[in-house]
């Protein structure tokens, strides 16, 4: 798989306040960790940094039981 993003799944909205990040001032950078696609966002409106993960697989760890 080409790891270059297609565009349809780009993170567009600030996860914190919902502002549109698609304009020139919206900061969205894509990077990869293994098979997971990550985005770091900076919102100039609420001034929040957020990381968003589009995971290849959701994994959970069972606590001791």
């Amino acid at each position: 798989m080409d790891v270059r993003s297609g565009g349809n799944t780009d993170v567009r909205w600030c996860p914190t306040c919902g502002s549109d990040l698609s304009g020139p001032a919206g900061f969205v950078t894509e990077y990869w960790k293994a098979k997971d696609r990550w985005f770091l966002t900076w919102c100039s409106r609420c001034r929040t940094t957020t990381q968003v993960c589009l995971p290849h697989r959701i994994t959970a760890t069972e606590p001791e039981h």
Partner: protein
Amino acid sequence: MLKPELNRRLTQVGPGTPGGDLLRRYWWPIAPSVDVGPEPLERRLLGEDLVLFRTREGDVGLLERQCPHRSTSLGLGYVDQPRTPEAAGSPSGLRCGYHGWLFGTDGRCLEQPGESADSTFKDRIRAQSYRVQELGGLVFAYLGPEPAPLLPRYDLFVWDDVWRDIGHAELPCNFLQIMENSVDPHHVEWLHGRYDAFLRELSGAPASEVLTKKHLKVAFDVFEHGILKRRVLEGQTEDDEDWKVGHPLVFPSMLRIGGGGLNFFQIRVPIDDENTWHVWYQTYQPGGSVPPQETVPAYEVPLYDSRGKLLRDYVDGQDITAWVTQGRITPREREHLGSSDVGVIALRRLFAEQIDRVAAGEDPLCTYRDETTNQVITLPQEKEKFGGGDAFRREFLLHGQTRYSPILHDVLALFGDHDLVGRRAVEPV
């Protein structure tokens, strides 16, 4: 990956651009003091063409390059005394070589030899002038709005009992990709470690032991001076200075690095969107007092060998080759970042944040307006670099761009590295 419009926002440096508005809030080195004299230097900074000169009284002036008369470059000019009786005894200024108009360091037009003696035309003419200050052997310029902040007195610029020298080169690429290198610790192990070992193997020399160590962990903390970079190398723990102290990227455009009494700044000065003036500002501090320097020497760092190929047989040449071959402005929409690139992402985010601060009317990071906090700005930096400060110094003095310094062998003697004195600077250590 970065959107093209965001790439432009972060890399444009000219007037009227968001990035240019941010960068105009800082003082920028524009020339080594030793190079500034009565013959004007043509310089380009943040996309603006300028001329720099020193009057006979020793003052430094910085004016727009184009003469207000008919736009000839004031680089075709010279420092001269006023010649009219009414201006006798006034300070010297920069006289345009084309028709002799004379300008003071403040941009005022002092004489127009072709106009009648009673003309007041000159009083209505002013060349755009900019603030300049000298510190530590460099001339700094400020092109931004008033009130100008203070010129930060970072420690290396003001320390006593050190020698200094200044290497510099014009690099054909945007400043941001150079800055990203400073938050990319892994490249040290590969570019300066293994690639360098490959080159040394070809020439029969042993690999550097200082630069080939494997990175186990890196971290980046945004703090008051920019981004503090930490690393744990193979054989180290979090108690070693490379992690416990680290060293900073000083926002927006400096890297502070060093060890073993060799401490330096790498300063990336945007000439325009596609060119950067790179300054290597060294201090040499063996401990105790050192003989005073009359001037801080400056030297040009060559980029190409005799075949026109970028030099890459030393640390800084390897960096330069990496930066320049990324393209004039690296196309970040085509990149593929991984988890080892989080420092690069942190820096871009910091630039985006500071651009927004300036747009909102605020001062950006590393703005100083209080004299009491600007006496000496002490920056954190490990002394036992890569686990051994003296080994770092010995490696870098001969295998960094200091190999071109005119005082290299005096510096080696200053540190007592007598076994290296007289050694060919281009010979691998």
